[in-house]
C-alpha cells in the first residue's frame, strides 16, 4: 500500500504564495499572531481617535463640538472597540505568537481553527466599524447596552453591534479552546505545570475565563436581538420581562472580562521583570496560583457593577466581600514582583520601565477598586467619572502598560531587529505624564458630581479645569503613541539585527531564531526548571 509522502515534501500550491496571499492563507501561529497584533493595534488607533473626539467635546463647559448622538455613539464604540477589538484580540495575538514557542511546540493544536478565529475577529471588527455608516449611525447605548435603552432606539447600528459582538465572541471562544488544548497537550518533554512560563499560565487562565464568561454575553445579546427584532420581551418590563436580568447576565461576563484583559498583561510582567533584574521570579508558585485565584474569584463578583440597582443589602455585602477577596491574590502578585526587584541588577530598558509603570499605576487602580467595592461609597462613586478613572487606571495603567512592555520585549523575537531605545524611553515618560494627567483628575471630577457618559456639562471652576487638564493629557498620550508607532515601523525595517536571545532571557521562545523559522524549533533543550534557557547558558559556561 502506498504511503503518503511527508507533508513537508509536498509542493506548495501556487495560490498560497506571495507577499499577500501567503498571509491570507497562513495557518502559522506566528503569522496569525502578527495579524492579530497589528489588526488590534489599528483598532486601538481608531478607538483612540474616538477618545480624542470625546475629550475635545468635554474640554470646555457647554461645548458643541459634536452632537449628542455622535457623542453617545463615540463613547459606546470607544469602549466596544478597546475591549472587543483591541485588548482581547491583541492578547490573543501575543498568546498565539508566544505560547507555542514558550512551551516548545511547533504550532497551536488546531492551526486552521486558529486562522478562522482571526478572520472572524476581523469580520466582527469590520462590522462594528462599518456600523458608523449605517442609517442612524453606530450603536449609542453604551458598551454594555442595557435594555430598555438598547431596545428603544430603532437604529440598525445596534443590531450590527450585536452581530459584531457575536462574531468576535465566536472567535474568542474557539481561540480559547485552542489555547487550552495546546497548553495541556503540546508542552516540551520535562515542562511540567510548575515549569511553564507565567505568561502561559496567564493565557491558560485567560482562556478558561473566556470559555466560562463569554457564553453569558452571547446569550444576553442574543435575547436582546430577539427582543429587538422578533417581538419577544425577555428584558422588557412592560411585557413581563426583566431589565435587571440583562444586567446580571452582562456582568456575569463583564467582570471576568476585566481579568481576561489584565491577567495576560500580568503574565508579561512576570516574564519581563526577572530578565531585567537578572533574578528568578520571586514566588513562582504564588504568582501561578494567584492567577488561578483571581480567575476563580472573578466569577463571583459581578454584581458589584450593580450596587445601585437596589439589590438587597446582604447581597451587596456579599459581592463587596467577594470583590475584596480578589484584592488578596492581586496584592500577592504586586508584592512578588517588587520582591523580584529586590537585590536585582536592574537594567532600565523600555520593557522593564513599562513593567515598573504598571506596578506603580495598576496599584492605584487596584486601590480605588477597593474603595468602590466598599459599596456605601460606591453609592456616590457609581457611574461617575470616578469609575472612569478607576477603570482606566486598571486597563491603561495595567493592561496597556503591560502591552507596551511586552511589545518592546518581544519585538526582537518577532522581527529579528532591535527597537530604538531612546524613542522608547520618550514614549514611556510621555505616556506616564499624559496618562496620569488624563485620568487622575477624573477621580475628583467624578466625586464633584460628574456622571459618566454625559455629552456636556455646565459647571465651571475646578470642574471645568479638571476636564481641560484631562483633555490636554490625551494630546500628550497621542504624541507618545505616535512615537511608539514610528519606533515599531522604522525599527522593523531598519533596526539593528539581533540574535536569538538579545536579553539573555529564561524561556524557550528565545531558543528559536529571531524571527523563528516556520517550524519554530529543530530541537528543544531539555526542560528541567522554569528557566530552561538560563539552565542552558549555565551548562555551556560550565563546559568551557
Amino acid at each position, binding site marked *: 500500500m502506498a504511503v503518503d509522502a511527508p507533508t513537508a515534501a509536498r509542493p506548495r500550491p501556487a495560490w498560497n504564495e506571495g507577499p499577500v496571499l501567503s498571509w491570507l492563507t497562513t495557518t502559522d501561529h506566528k503569522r496569525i499572531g502578527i495579524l492579530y497584533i497589528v489588526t488590534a493595534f489599528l483598532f486601538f488607533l481608531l478607538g483612540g481617535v474616538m477618545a480624542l473626539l470625546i475629550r475635545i467635546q468635554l474640554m470646555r463647559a457647554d461645548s458643541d463640538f459634536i452632537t449628542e448622538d455622535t457623542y453617545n455613539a463615540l463613547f459606546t464604540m470607544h469602549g466596544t472597540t478597546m475591549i472587543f477589538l483591541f485588548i482581547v484580540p491583541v492578547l490573543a495575538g501575543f498568546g498565539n505568537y508566544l505560547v507555542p514557542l514558550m512551551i516548545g511546540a511547533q504550532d497551536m493544536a488546531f492551526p486552521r481553527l486558529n486562522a478562522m478565529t482571526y478572520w472572524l475577529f476581523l469580520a466582527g471588527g469590520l462590522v462594528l466599524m462599518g456600523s458608523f455608516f449605517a442609517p442612524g449611525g453606530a450603536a449609542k447605548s453604551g458598551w454594555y447596552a442595557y435594555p430598555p435603552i438598547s431596545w428603544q432606539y430603532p437604529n440598525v447600528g445596534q443590531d450590527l453591534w450585536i452581530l459584531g459582538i457575536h462574531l468576535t465572541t465566536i472567535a474568542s471562544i474557539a481561540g480559547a479552546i485552542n489555547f487550552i488544548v495546546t497548553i495541556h497537550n503540546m508542552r516540551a518533554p520535562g515542562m511540567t505545570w510548575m515549569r511553564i512560563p507565567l505568561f502561559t499560565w496567564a493565557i491558560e487562565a485567560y482562556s478558561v475565563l473566556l470559555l466560562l464568561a463569554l457564553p453569558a454575553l452571547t446569550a444576553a445579546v442574543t435575547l436582546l436581538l430577539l427582543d429587538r427584532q422578533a417581538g419577544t420581551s425577555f428584558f422588557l418590563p412592560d411585557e413581563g420581562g426583566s431589565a435587571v436580568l440583562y444586567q446580571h447576565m452582562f456582568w456575569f461576563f463583564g467582570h471576568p472580562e476585566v481579568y481576561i484583559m489584565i491577567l495576560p498583561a500580568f503574565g508579561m510582567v512576570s516574564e519581563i521583570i526577572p530578565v531585567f533584574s537578572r533574578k528568578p521570579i520571586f514566588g513562582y508558585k504564588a504568582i501561578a496560583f494567584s492567577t488561578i485565584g483571581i480567575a476563580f474569584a472573578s466569577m463571583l463578583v459581578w454584581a458589584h457593577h450593580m450596587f445601585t440597582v437596589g439589590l438587597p443589602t446582604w447581597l451587596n455585602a456579599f459581592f463587596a466581600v467577594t470583590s475584596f477577596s480578589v484584592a488578596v491574590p492581586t496584592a500577592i502578585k504586586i508584592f512578588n514582583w517588587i520582591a523580584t526587584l529586590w537585590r536585582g541588577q536592574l537594567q532600565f530598558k523600555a520593557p522593564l520601565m513599562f513593567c515598573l509603570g504598571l506596578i506603580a499605576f495598576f496599584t492605584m487602580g487596584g486601590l480605588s477598586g477597593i474603595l468602590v467595592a466598599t459599596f456605601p*461609597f460606591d453609592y456616590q462613586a457609581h457611574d461617575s467619572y470616578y469609575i472612569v478613572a478607576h477603570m482606566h487606571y486598571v486597563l491603561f495603567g495595567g493592561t496597556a502598560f503591560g502591552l507596551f512592555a511586552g511589545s518592546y520585549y518581544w519585538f526582537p523575537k518577532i522581527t529579528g531587529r532591535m527597537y530604538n531605545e531612546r524613542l522608547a524611553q520618550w514614549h514611556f515618560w510621555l505616556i506616564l505624564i499624559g496618562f496620569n494627567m488624563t485620568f487622575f483628575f477624573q477621580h475628583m471630577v467624578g466625586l464633584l458630581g460628574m456622571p459618566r457618559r454625559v455629552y456636556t456639562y455646565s459647571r465651571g471652576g475646578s470642574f471645568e479645569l479638571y476636564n481641560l487638564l484631562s483633555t490636554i493629557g490625551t494630546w500628550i498620550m497621542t504624541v507618545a503613541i505616535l512615537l511608539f508607532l514610528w519606533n515599531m515601523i522604522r525599527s522593523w525595517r531598519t533596526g539593528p539585527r539581533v540574535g536569538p536571545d538579545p536579553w539573555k532571557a529564561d524561556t524557550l521562545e528565545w531558543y528559536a531564531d529571531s524571527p523563528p523559522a516556520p517550524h519554530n524549533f529543530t530541537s528543544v533543550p531539555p526542560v528541567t526548571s522554569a528557566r530552561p534557557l538560563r539552565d542552558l547558558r549555565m551548562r555551556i559556561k560550565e563546559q568551557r
Partner: protein
Amino acid sequence: MRRTVLVLLALALPAAAVVAALFLPGIAPPRTVTDSGRTIHEIYWVTFALAALVFILVEAALLAFIFRFRRRRDMPDGLEGPQIHGNTRVEIIWTTIPAVLLLALAIYAIARVPDVEATPPSSAAGEVLEIEVTARQFYWQYEYPNGAISYDALYVPVDTHVTLFLRSTDVAHSWWVPDLSGKRDAIPGRLNRINFRATETGFFEHGVCGEFCGTQHARMTTDAHVLSAEEFEQWLADNEPPLEDDATVALGETQWAAACAKCHGLAGEGGYGPPLAGNTTLVTEDALRQIVTEGQDLDANPGYMPPVGRGWTDEQIRSLIAYVESNPDLAPQGGSR
C-alpha cells in the same frame, strides 16, 4: 545611614503626593447635609486612609528598589542578582496581612450600612415624608402626599425622615444628588427606595441622572431644596391641587423646561428636536396626550421621540397647555383647543 536616607526619601515622595492630593477639590465625596451622606463620607475617608497607607508603602518600596538596585555602569555584563526563588514565610505574611485588613474593612463598612440606608425608625412611623419620584427621558417628576407636583426640583423639609420611591416609565435612570446622599437606580418594572434625613437647610444644585438614559442624559438634572418645616408646609399648601390659574401656568412652565425644552428649546425654537413654537399639537389636548404617551416616529432615526409623558394625568396635560397658551412665543397664533 545612606540606607535610612533612601528609605525616608522613598516614603516621602508618595506621601507628599497623597498630602498634595488632599488639597484638591473633589478628593472626597461631599460631606452632605444628611446623616446617610455623612456616613458615606466617613466610610470613604476610612477606606481612603487604608488605601493611602498601602499606596505609600508599595510605591516607596518600588522607588527605593529602583534606586538601590539599579545596575551601575562599572558592573560586569554577566552579573546576576542572587538567585532567590521565594520565601514561604514572607508569602504567608503578605497574604495574611491584606486579608486581615480587608476583612476588618468589610466588617466596618457593613456595620456602618444601616446609617447609610437610613431606614426610618419605627418610632418615626407616620412622620416619614414619602415622595413618589418618576424618572422619564429626560427629567425627574416629584409627587408629594397632597398631590403637589414638581419637576427637576425636589422640595423636602429639614430634620424629617424622607423616603423617595423611585420608578421609571421608560429606561434605567439613577437618582443622584451628591450633596444629599448616594445614588439609587430607577429601573422600569422595579420599585426602589432611598431614605435620608437632612439636618441643614439649603439649596443644592448638581443633581443628575447617574445611569446613561439616552440622547439627553446630560441634561437630566435636578435641584434639591431643603426647607425649614414652615417653609415646606407653605410650599406644599401653595402647590396643592386644584391649583389656581397662575399657579397652573407656573407649574406648566417648569414642566415645559423639564420635559420639552431640553430637545425643543425653552422658547420652542428647536434644538435636538424640531421647533415647536406655534405648533397646534401643543394646545390640542388629545393630540398632545397621544404624542407624550406614545412618543413619535418609533421606526425612524433620527426623528425618534421618547414617550416623555407616559402616565401623565389630565391635570398634567392641562398645566402644560395652560403654560403654552400663556406664552406668546409658544402659543399658536389665534389657536385654541
